[in-house]
């Protein structure tokens, strides 16, 4: 009799709670959550052997001729999704995707992240991530009409938005996703929810759950939640600043009490790696045409490749930990947006940081405020590069990156580049309102 406790736990709980369905969740290459539901009768077999499904139906998985794949649920991720009203609760598990032979499928983003985490763990590191996720509520999904025009920290007259956020946070906490802070952001109808750090795999799962919960609760109240990076021109965009740290056993590897900034050699190497490879990984952390409308000056989004301890426009921020809270030493990578695939985004951030540690990249001096006042030429003269200006540029830089190719694996790397080129080509064909306004009359 072989017996694994998490499996027993899942089987018992489904029976005891009288659950009628268990949803199996996984993610396509571009970060959309996919899934299907199975009945309790299928559950034991699914946990043992996985469920066969048609991989050709999933973006970036397989072509038709080799389409059958297996989704193997991870019993450690089993959790109950709070029911809506009188609906009976439904459970969900994240799945690992395998070939029929049982081999892990290299196009599965969860597998990509696991592979990168294994590399870190072989060096004795556990990788933690804590994202701050911004998003908007709009009245519908066809037009970005805000629910209100309340400003930052303005709690008055926010009615439905407050109700939305309250319900969302309760649902997240009930699903074991602890929330650090939440407040009204700068943009109209924009909100931010910060998730308490966790190991990167759980966190990527959490981001997927988070986006689903936020959209579902908005939907229940008749509004639309969007993670589009820049829905309104002239307003703040939505980012996913991500706090990153490495631990060796229970010691924060980024902390050094002897350093004036409290940052260890490992921490500095990690930051240097993020900066060195920033241009190469941007296509992954900012993967839509629209992402680059956010990465412009004037809206606290990063544009130059530099780091600082306290500057809202630096690409990497190194917050000074409070005395006695040394284990919270971390670096904040500020370019990612919430439309990314979290598994792939965490993978490339980790790979860039590890490269900095392994290759011993030297960390450039902290950016001073005048960097942001310099002209482009002055910055270039000082060796301060800019992030890619468009999806096209980002994909070009990514294509030449052996670091990203290795981190994502050939399958995901090739598919991603093909898909994003096609997205750019489709965008290129458009004639925008801006062009009509600017040229139609005068030319």
């Amino acid at each position, binding site marked *: *009799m*072989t*017996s694994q*406790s*998490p499996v*027993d*736990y*899942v089987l*018992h*709980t489904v029976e*005891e*709670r009288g659950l009628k369905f268990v949803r199996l969740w996984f993610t396509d290459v571009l970060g959309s959550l996919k899934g299907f539901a199975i009945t309790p009768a299928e559950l034991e077999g699914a946990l043992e052997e996985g469920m066969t499904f048609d991989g050709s139906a999933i973006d970036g998985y397989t072509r038709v001729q080799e389409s059958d794949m297996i989704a193997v649920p991870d*019993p*450690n*991720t*089993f*959790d*109950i999704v*709070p029911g809506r009203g009188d609906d009976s*609760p439904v459970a969900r598990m994240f799945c690992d995707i395998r070939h029929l032979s049982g081999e892990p499928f290299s196009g599965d983003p969860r597998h990509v992240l696991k592979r990168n985490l294994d590399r870190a*763990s072989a060096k004795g590191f*556990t990788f*933690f991530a804590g994202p701050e996720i911004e998003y908007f509520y709009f009245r519908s999904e066809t037009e970005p009409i805000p629910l209100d025009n309340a400003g930052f920290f303005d709690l008055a007259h926010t009615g439905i938005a407050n109700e939305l956020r309250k319900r969302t946070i309760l649902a*997240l*906490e*009930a*699903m*074991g*996703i*602890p*929330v650090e802070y939440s407040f009204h952001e700068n943009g109209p109808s924009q909100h931010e929810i910060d998730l*308490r*750090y*966790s*190991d990167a795999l*759980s966190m990527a799962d959490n981001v997927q759950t988070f986006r689903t919960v936020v959209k579902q609760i908005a939907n229940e109240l008749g509004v639309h939640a969007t993670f589009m990076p820049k829905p309104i021109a002239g307003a703040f965009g939505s980012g996913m600043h991500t706090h990153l740290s490495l*631990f*060796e*056993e*229970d010691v924060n590897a980024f902390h050094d009490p002897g350093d004036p900034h409290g940052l260890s050699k490992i921490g500095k190497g990690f930051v240097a790696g993020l900066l060195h490879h920033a241009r190469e990984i941007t296509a992954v952390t900012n993967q839509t045409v629209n992402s680059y409308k956010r990465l412009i000056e004037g809206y606290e989004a990063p544009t130059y490749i530099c780091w600082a301890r306290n500057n809202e426009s630096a690409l990497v921020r190194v917050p000074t930990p409070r005395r006695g809270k040394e*284990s919270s030493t971390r670096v904040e990578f500020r370019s990612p947006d919430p439309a990314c695939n979290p598994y792939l985004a965490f993978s490339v951030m980790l790979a860039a940081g590890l490269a900095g540690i392994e290759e011993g990249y030297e960390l450039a001096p902290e950016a001073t405020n005048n960097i942001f006042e310099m002209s482009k030429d002055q910055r270039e003269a000082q060796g301060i590069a800019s992030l890619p200006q468009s999806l096209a540029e980002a994909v070009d830089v990514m294509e030449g990156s052996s670091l990203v190719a290795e981190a994502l694996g050939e399958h995901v790397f090739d598919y991603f580049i093909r898909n994003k080129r096609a997205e750019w080509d489709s965008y290129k064909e458009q004639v925008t309102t801006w062009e009509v306004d600017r040229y139609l009359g005068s030319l």
Partner: protein
Amino acid sequence: MSDIAPTEPLAIFPDPPPPLLAQTLDLAGYPWKAVSNAAVAIQQEPVDGWAGAVISAEADPEAAFGICRALRKRDAPVDRVLLLITGSQLSELELREDLFDDFCLSPFHPQELEARLHHLFFRTGRTTGPEIVEYGALILNLETYQAAFGNVPLDLTYMEYELLKFLVTHPAKVFTREQLLSRVWGYEYYGGARTVDVHVRRLRAKLGEEHAGLIQTVRSVGYRFGQTRGAISR
């Protein structure tokens, strides 16, 4: 004694067993089979299950507790697990009460070992009801893995459940992160003690505002479950 001895074998660790142990069991009429680790103990289990186990923690306590864990932490746990330990290992027993039924100090006296085994087998057949642990309104059914506040079920992941079970069954005691990691996650976990903080925070989130305080942070030490007085911080 053989009137009470089982027909199925006992699992014995280590492999080969100390000669005196093998001899004592043979003389008392207990069939046995030596196992070298937890995986073997599971693979070689007879169809009707092990009659019990005598596990010596003397030479390799980590492997010994690993076997106990494999035999106990499952659907149909082995009922009669006897540990052989040295006097200096007594402290190892603390917080592992659920992994064994009785222990015997080693070097052991053959008659004492036999008497203890006899006593364990004498208790056979007495069925116990579902194992329920209660703390205030919090109820854990250890048999069905369900936790609830009164009638309201608490939806937990497996590790959250295991952590809560451990804390509820050891109330008012302070545990370091390392203790929790080794007792709840087991030795094989590599993630580091930071994992404990992450899970405690998740568990508090699920307990909800009203009950989150049941798990208290004891500054620069670790965690404690339950209501207590004194200097605590959350």
